[in-house]
């Protein structure tokens, strides 16, 4: 994949230029992608302020989780939006993917670079702004170590979400028909990881710490940023494990994508 880096960069630049040709449309889409974050956080704050705390976490501390999760989701979707089931389904049904396979680049590199979606930069920025606001409210004293933990959380969670998208795309190559089921992990996972993990039952917690490790990638580093002790079974040092675990999950996603392509038969005409 690496030997075609120049090609991918040019493809990505072309797709960004293409969307920039309609600046008003692009602006509306970008603002909207960020506005969702602001609205969701505002609503949750209205609710949490009434209750005072959840699972021993103050509202600002919970909002930090929301910020990290949304930033990671934005980052993953800038590159991976086109891997969502309905879009892969369209690539297959229109025969576009047949052409992709004949090109001398990697299919994944081509698909990702050709459909970079800058509107999700809006979600990333809104998420990052949420992190800054929340840590300020929670009285976090930033240190290089804590900044590194926050960056690690975003990078690992984004890698996991991208992995989820790859699995969903691989699945869509086989079913052709788009399925809403991937949204459970994509948006549902983000939603779940936006609350402290101790509020969930042990089964749900196990799945989202060790199987689809979004909880491991967001909640555990956030403990370190906030200077909190984790619940039994989730000590803060696990944060350093999230990088290899996220990498492993991403690799699994890559395998699923390849398996999907092996079963790809096109839809003919």
């Amino acid at each position, binding site marked *: 994949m690496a030997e075609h880096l120049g090609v991918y960069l040019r493809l990505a630049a072309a797709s960004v230029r293409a969307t920039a040709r309609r600046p008003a449309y692009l602006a*509306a889409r970008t603002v909207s992608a960020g506005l969702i974050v602001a609205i969701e956080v505002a609503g949750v704050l209205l*609710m949490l302020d*009434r209750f005072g705390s*959840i699972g021993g976490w103050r509202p600002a501390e919970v909002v930090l989780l929301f910020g990290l999760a949304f930033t990671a989701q934005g980052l993953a979707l800038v590159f991976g939006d086109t891997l969502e089931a309905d879009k892969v389904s369209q690539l297959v049904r229109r025969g576009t993917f047949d052409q992709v396979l004949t090109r001398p680049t990697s299919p994944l590199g081509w698909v990702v670079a050709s459909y970079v979606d800058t509107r999700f930069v809006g979600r990333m920025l809104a998420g990052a702004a949420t992190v800054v606001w929340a840590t300020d409210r929670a009285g976090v004293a930033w240190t290089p170590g804590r900044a590194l933990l926050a960056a690690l959380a975003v990078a690992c969670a984004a890698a996991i979400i991208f992995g989820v998208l790859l699995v969903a795309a691989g699945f869509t190559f086989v079913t052709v028909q788009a*399925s809403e089921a991937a949204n*459970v992990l994509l948006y549902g996972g983000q939603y779940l990881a936006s609350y402290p993990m101790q*509020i969930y039952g042990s089964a*749900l917690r196990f799945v989202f710490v060790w199987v689809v490790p979004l909880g491991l990638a967001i909640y555990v580093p956030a403990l370190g940023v906030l200077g909190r002790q984790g619940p039994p079974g989730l000590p803060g040092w696990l944060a350093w494990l999230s990088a290899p675990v996220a990498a492993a999950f991403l690799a699994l996603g890559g395998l699923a994508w390849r398996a999907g392509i092996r079963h790809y038969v096109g839809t003919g005409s």
Partner: protein
Amino acid sequence: MRAYLALLAAGFQRQTSYRLALAAGLTTNAFFGVVRTAVFFALYRERDQVAGLDVADALTYVWILEGLFAVVWAPWFWELAEAIRSGEFVVELLRPRDPYLRLLAFDLGRTLSVLALRTVPTLAVATLVLPLRLPGTVGGLALLGVSMVLAAVVSFQLRFLFGSAAFWTPDYRSLFMLVFPVLWLLSGFVVPVDFFPGPLRALVDWSPLIPLLMAPVRVATAGAGVAVATQVAWVAVLWLAGRLVLATASRRLVVHGG
């Protein structure tokens, strides 16, 4: 009347045939419902009542929300706007009988299928395992059903108005994308509107967003009278608005192409 009923049945059948989408939708609703349930259980651990809601009210809100999600934000949201932009909508104006009623009948057929196959099973399972506050009498349940159907009607009427933007601009999507997050919050899909600050809540209570989700929730948890009356009033107002838009738009409709 018989023609509209046939359209309603056709809409019902069409939506019912998407089996895979149904399974995926039920999974999504179940997952979000479980997470939201865990959130409310944790929130109410040290409190009995907040903003007039107790844990049973909150859980009822959660599962009615999951049940009505695909009714209010119907996956076919943009069909009308796309038909207007492509020019196919002209066919609707040429067909016999009233176009607004025809569109409503077909749409309602589809949402009734969602109500029957997604909303009812979701609520039935939830009420078996969780302390929900659903009406205990047949009459009460029937009223809840009526309220949900009214939610589906208002949903169609609002979607019709948003889709009609395509009569005036091909950029209807950017417009809606900026409005959507606000509608999402104010209709109560992020948190119950009961948690809003007083003035905002008073404002929202008088908006056509209340019939979509909060009215059915109130029918189940509080009193049915005011909630259903509000829904009926909004159906009437949006009916007039829809007719007005359709009359104005069909006079200025220009079909491109050849």
